[in-house]
């Protein structure tokens, strides 16, 4: 039995390459070239990149805390 939302067929290799490129192009448009590259890194490297980015920002005085409003967007 299929799980909720599960798609039936795998894409052929050519289609998969095309989709992968379209997704990468979207990441470049939405997040910029550098973050698109990061988003396609293996998880451990991506986490390390985010950690370095946040730690650097905090050292430079960036505040990440969101207001505590009791309800969240």
């Amino acid at each position, binding site marked *: 039995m299929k799980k909720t939302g*599960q798609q039936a067929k795998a894409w052929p290799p050519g289609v998969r390459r095309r989709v*992968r490129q379209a*997704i990468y192009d979207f990441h470049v448009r939405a997040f910029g070239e550098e973050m698109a590259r990061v*988003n396609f890194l293996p998880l451990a490297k991506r*986490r390390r*990149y985010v950690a370095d980015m946040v730690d650097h920002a905090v050292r430079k005085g960036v505040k990440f805390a969101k207001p505590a409003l*009791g309800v*969240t*967007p």
Partner: protein
Amino acid sequence: MPLSYAEREEFYESLVARARRQGIACAITSGMACVAYGVAQATQDCDLLCAPDAAGKFLSLLGEASLHGQLPSYRGHLTPPLDARWLRGGWTSHFVWDAEGAEAYLDIFGVAPRGSSPWETELQGFYAGPHTVAEMKRTNRGKDWPFVTALGAHMLEAKDARGWLHIYDENLLRTFGEVSPAPAEMLKRRPILGLAVANDSRLHAALYAEVQFWHELDRARLRIYEKAVRPYLMAVKKAHVPAGAVLATQHEIRVRCAENHLPTNPLHDYGIDQMISDARAALGEMVQPSTLAWLPDVCEQFKVGTA
């Protein structure tokens, strides 16, 4: 010594692990989950989903959760108590570990805003599933929307057809429409997909209207909660929580204030249909009327936890 991102992440994950060992259903969501699902977001706080019925147990756990020698406190006067009654009604409880240079922030939800299915059923490791995370990201903040689309693409690549519900980029939607038809169930849930699959020129305007609809829905929802919280805010301000009070004492004071001044479920009181109608009316003033025909039925998104 400032607390690093990795230390914070480890702390939040250990909190989830301890909670689960005690039988508490909980999961990290939002920015930290996005990183796990292939879209990096710089965030320092942790958004956590916790089963409302386990709120009391989770509060006890928090009361002992020391970080750099600091125990947590409730954050701000607007924060409702971490109690099943208010968590179930869509409120968020905010906590802070307030050590100099080592602050940590934790926001706890009982129900996922806009979640169309129970989040507890689809956990992936420490995290809520990408479907839940994507639904939570349909906010009134423009910056969240590329994350929704990225999560949708991640799901479609992983062969989860519900990814179709989260693609809001026109080019990407057309590409997916060309390579694989959206399943009938998804077309029913999101009519605009029919335009993408048919490569219809009306897609651009309809997609814009759909995103604006979610913006308006979120604005309407926030207005309802912000209005409902005002008497509670005044009560908490007047309550004078003793400096250095332990979390349990802070909690008792907030519960007392909430029982007298904070409706448990203002969205339910206001009416989900009325909120949707408000959002449609606001949308009608900013988009072509013909695009309203392509809007999804969003009732399901507000049913979980608001009954």
